[in-house]
């Protein structure tokens, strides 16, 4: 990182606020944990990994994102409560836990995902990491500032506000001085009857200086910041795209220099002088034609180049050879690999549930979902019936409450009284009914066999990182479930929106493994990332998924170490059988 002018300015003006204590301590900052487990760096590190994979898209330690800031959460709640909440917050809420409901209400009723498959150790590690981070500690993993980083408590407000006042004062002072100067110049000009300053000449000269300095700064920018732009593309088409970029940069750069130069040079050269008369010259059709044609020709070149490149990228003949599904949601990414059968199972958003977050078409899961939903409807109906009683209760407990609590209480009363509570419940019930119907239809109609074809059973679902083999054309199939996201992989030069209801895809061939790129760039912590580039909500800035490009051998090793998502807990022999069946089937088909 270069300490540029701006860096110095930053130091100069915000000395006090710049005292940011980046967590760098190696040792853990806590002695004991509420989880009762022994504190050690390895556990904390494991907790951090878990946090990054599962929590950080919605939570930060110090900031409120979608969910609340997690600093000192272990002091606010019991460990037992935390475990329950993390595993299945919805169940906890339904059990009538007051705290759980309060948290839910306080966060815009945003539903947190359930993590039912977290093991005890994992929950403990997660909590330990949060404790450690709250206490200002941190494992020695360098991460640039921000949500996941362990930032010290905000700077003492007193200091900051003093700095601000000083700044404002300085600011005003400069303003007043400038204003005085202007007034003096004006006064003198009025007295003398003509301008003291020859504005025409001065401005012309400043324009010239601005041009010279501007060009110098431009070159400096290209030299300094130009180095910080994306390194060479790691995909085949990316290289072509970069080439196209360079060609465009060449032409536009040339035009930029020439026209800006002429603009400021003319401004300087032909500044107005007394007694001079401009050259009366109103048109010249030949010149017009010339400078219509030249840009047209240049643009034709660019258009043809662009058309070829674009077509090459979007019309890749090798698409669908190797598919990976990437699933975008608020606020994270999940990927799904075809299992041994080489086919991605079908999916439908109606099947999404706590144990099937991608809505993969698995027959028994779909069947099991129906009673769950039916139970839900029953619960909701009960809630609906109890609304008048609840209103009474709320009204009786209202007395004595003050401040924020009273406001929440009043809101709730209002919600029931004006019928929104009821209509919300009814909407949910109707949605559930629709969902049940759709699932039933999908199970019963003739297409059911084709839809629940069990190809999804052995699919592999990964949350943390995607691995892909090098030098092989890969198709990423994108699917979303809530709002638009944009799957942007800067290093691969690929981007496509994730559109709920519309299948989108990118096809590319990575030509450099992560390892090679690390060595080439001499950055040991370099990774390929998939990030979100389309505004999608509060934590939009925080959605990422690591992509690892492996050699063919490494990839094989990795993929074979992964378990099928629906065969993982394959204690039940029935599923084993099904799995075997499917493999046989695919064999036959193949």
């Amino acid at each position, binding site marked *: 990182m270069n300490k540029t002018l701006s860096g110095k300015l930053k130091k100069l003006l915000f000395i006090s606020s710049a005292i940011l204590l980046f967590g760098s301590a190696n040792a853990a900052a806590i002695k004991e944990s509420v989880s009762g487990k022994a504190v050690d760096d390895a556990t904390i590190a494991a907790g951090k990994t878990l946090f990054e994979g599962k929590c950080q898209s919605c939570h930060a330690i110090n900031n409120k994102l979608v969910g609340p800031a997690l600093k000192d959460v272990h002091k606010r709640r019991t460990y037992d409560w935390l475990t329950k909440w993390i595993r299945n917050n919805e169940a906890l809420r339904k059990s009538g836990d007051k705290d759980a409901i309060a948290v839910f209400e306080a966060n815009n009723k945003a539903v947190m995902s359930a993590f039912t498959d977290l093991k005890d150790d994992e929950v403990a590690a997660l909590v330990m990491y949060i404790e450690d981070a709250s206490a200002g500690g941190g494992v020695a993993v360098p991460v640039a500032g921000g949500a996941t980083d362990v930032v010290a408590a905000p700077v003492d407000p007193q200091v900051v506000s003093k700095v601000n006042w000083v700044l404002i004062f300085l600011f005003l002072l400069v303003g007043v001085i400038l204003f005085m100067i202007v007034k003096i110049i004006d006064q003198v000009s009025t007295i003398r009857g003509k301008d003291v300053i020859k504005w025409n000449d001065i401005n012309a000269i400043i324009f010239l200086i601005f041009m010279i300095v501007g060009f110098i700064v431009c070159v400096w920018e290209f030299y300094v910041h130009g180095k910080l732009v994306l390194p060479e593309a790691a995909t085949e088409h990316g290289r072509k795209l970069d080439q196209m*970029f360079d060609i465009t940069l060449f032409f536009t750069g040339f035009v930029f220099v020439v026209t800006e130069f002429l603009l400021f040079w003319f401004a300087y050269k032909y500044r107005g002088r007394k007694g001079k008369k401009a050259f009366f010259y109103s*048109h010249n059709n030949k010149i017009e034609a010339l400078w219509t044609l030249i840009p047209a020709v240049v643009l034709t070149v660019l258009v043809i180049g662009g058309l070829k490149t674009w077509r090459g990228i979007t019309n890749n003949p090798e698409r669908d050879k190797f598919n990976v599904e990437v699933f975008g949601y608020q606020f994270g990414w999940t990927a799904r690999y075809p299992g041994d059968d080489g086919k991605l199972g079908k999916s439908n958003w109606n099947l999404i549930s706590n144990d099937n977050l991608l809505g993969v078409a698995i027959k028994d899961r779909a069947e099991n979902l129906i009673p769950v939903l039916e139970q839900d409807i029953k619960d909701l109906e009960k809630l609906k019936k109890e609304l008048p009683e609840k209103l009474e209760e709320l009204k009786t407990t209202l007395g004595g409450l003050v401040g924020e609590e009273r406001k929440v209480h009043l809101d709730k009363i209002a919600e029931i009284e004006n019928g929104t509570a009821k209509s919300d419940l009814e909407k949910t019930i109707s949605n559930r009914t629709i969902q049940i119907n759709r699932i039933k239809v999908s199970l019963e109609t003739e297409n059911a066999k084709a839809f629940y074809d069990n190809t999804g059973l052995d699919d592999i679902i990964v949350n943390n990182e995607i691995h892909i083999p090098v030098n092989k054309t890969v198709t990423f199939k994108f699917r979303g479930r809530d709002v638009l996201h944009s799957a942007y992989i800067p290093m691969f*030069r690929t981007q496509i929106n994730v559109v709920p209801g519309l299948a989108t895809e990118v096809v590319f061939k990575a030509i450099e493994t992560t390892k090679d790129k690390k060595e080439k760039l001499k950055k040991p912590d370099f990774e390929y990332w998939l990030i979100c580039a389309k505004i999608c909500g509060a934590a939009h800035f925080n959605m990422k998924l690591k992509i690892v490009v492996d050699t063919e051998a490494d990839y094989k090793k990795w993929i074979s170490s992964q378990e099928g998502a629906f065969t993982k807990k394959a204690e039940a022999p029935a599923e084993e059988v099904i799995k075997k069946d499917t493999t046989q089937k695919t064999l036959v088909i193949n």
Partner: protein
Amino acid sequence: MSQTATHNANAHGHDDHGHHHKENFFTKYVFSQDHKMISKQFLITGIIMGCLGMIMSILFRLQLAWPDSSFPILETLLGSKWAPGGKLDASFYMGLVTIHGTIMVFFVLTAGLSGTFSNLLIPLQVGARDMASPFMNMLSYWFFLASSVVLTISVFIESGPASGGWTIYPPLSALPKAMPGSGAGMTLWLVAMVLFIGSALLGGINYITTVLNMRTKGMSMNRMPLTIWAFFFTAILGLLSFPVLLGGSLLLIFDRSFGTSFYLSDIFLNGEGALANSGGSPILFQHLFWFLGHPEVYIIILPALGITSEIIAVNARKPIFGYTAMVISIIGIAFLSFIVWGHHMFVTGMNPLLGLVFMVFTLIIAVPSAVKTFNYLATLWRGNIQFTPGMMFAIGLVSFFISGGLTGIFLGNAAIDIQLHDTYFVVAHFHLVMGCAAIFGMMAGIYHWYPRLYGRTMNKTLGYMHFWLTFISAYMVFFPMHFIGLAGVPRRYYQFSVLPEFGVWDDVNVLITMAAILGAAAQLLFLYNFFSSIFFGKKSEQNPWKANTLEWTAPVERIHGNWPGAIPTVYRWPYDYSHPDYEDDFVLQTVPDKGNEESIAHSQTAPVTPEKTNSPEVVHFSALLLRWLGLRNA
């Protein structure tokens, strides 16, 4: 004249008010139907909205520059919900970005810019007593004001303002549960926009009618100043594109509130499927939105270019170079702007084959833009440039238009757009080419026509300081952003923490924010200058810049009807600056031809005489269409 003048209350039964003899405070300043007063109302509302937008940008720039610091003053100002502990909330950050964009695009650069100057200049420069329908003109302002008020209120409601970006892409904007701002804030945003569309249509119909129907004697289309050409086509663009947004918004309103699913499908949100909704397509909205959205860009920049054409010609004391080419460019840009909307959607899931078509048209649009730029340069060449504050801003506009326009060639190329779409590169591009350039056009117009508005001039010294500070700070803000974008940082990020590589831009962000604060401070100079000059500015002569156009032939005193006597007759085009046959370096449009003038320039110089009537006019598709449509001639 063959026209029969009869006194009718006009189509809408209200224009009888033109006859009022006594004016009280309300009829003069509030419910005025005088186009000059309405112009001032647009301008001042626009400036106020501009200040709001600017303050918002400073707020979120603070967050970007010092993401880990706390500014207690923010908590005092915004409350603990939106700035807990003096740190901007992520949702509110999105809201600020959204409302900043909305305000700047629609309220400042559409209504504030073209509303102000179309109102002021169209009647004055074409030689009309007022707009065709002063009542509708007033209504247009009141719709605009109502819309501004609704949008401003939406910032302060409890659940927060709309926060899905100014493009309000569904499903984010269609699902109230998707984020806090998608609730009541979004509803108010849509209400504001419907009101705004009403305002734009009422205004646009008026502008077009006035230009077509109410030009004074001798003001043929090819003698109109380029400002009028620009406003004319701006109005046409607005008239034809805003209705499409209206259609799109209606569908969105129904999706939000009445259970339809035009834009929704496969939604599972907040632990629950919005399951009644299926089968829609978010892409549909994007098409409808950008069918407005792209012409909207030209609605913003064309008036600025028109103003610049006028000011550069006046202050270079030279005729604008290539008047006809300039007009053709405006027409070309206006036409092409309707068939390039898809370049905003190359990677949004649009059919890639359509991308090819849109790419071709998009890059073609660079040609007329280039022609305009070259013509500006040619106008400056061998001029006698007077650096009035207006002229400074006009030159600044040309500079921005070049810098920002060229990066458009990258973005218009579908292939390169894959990498640059929705990154800071885009932010840099459009802020330069339609943000800064258009603001500079607006500033140029304000400084230039201030004497016409208020009869006084703005302080020159402050004007120069304002210009230089703004010019330099604007480049400092937006030039580095190109590099941030090239490093792959997406826009609308609350902080640059998602990838470790992005950390290197923290310093640059500080620099940009400093520059932005500097730029904002420079606007304080402008505000002071503007408002104090209304009362204390130096009294101006009638034609302070020695310009040729008609507005300077009308007295400065406020007269409803513009000219005390008969409307002047026009004998020449407006760009006879430094004409060799005249001693002065300007010849008013109302000066008759000497009869033996050497016609170096244009047919425009010569008066329209019966012999000359066969010469083709610029707008003359009639002859072509006659044959083409087979309609009979009247």
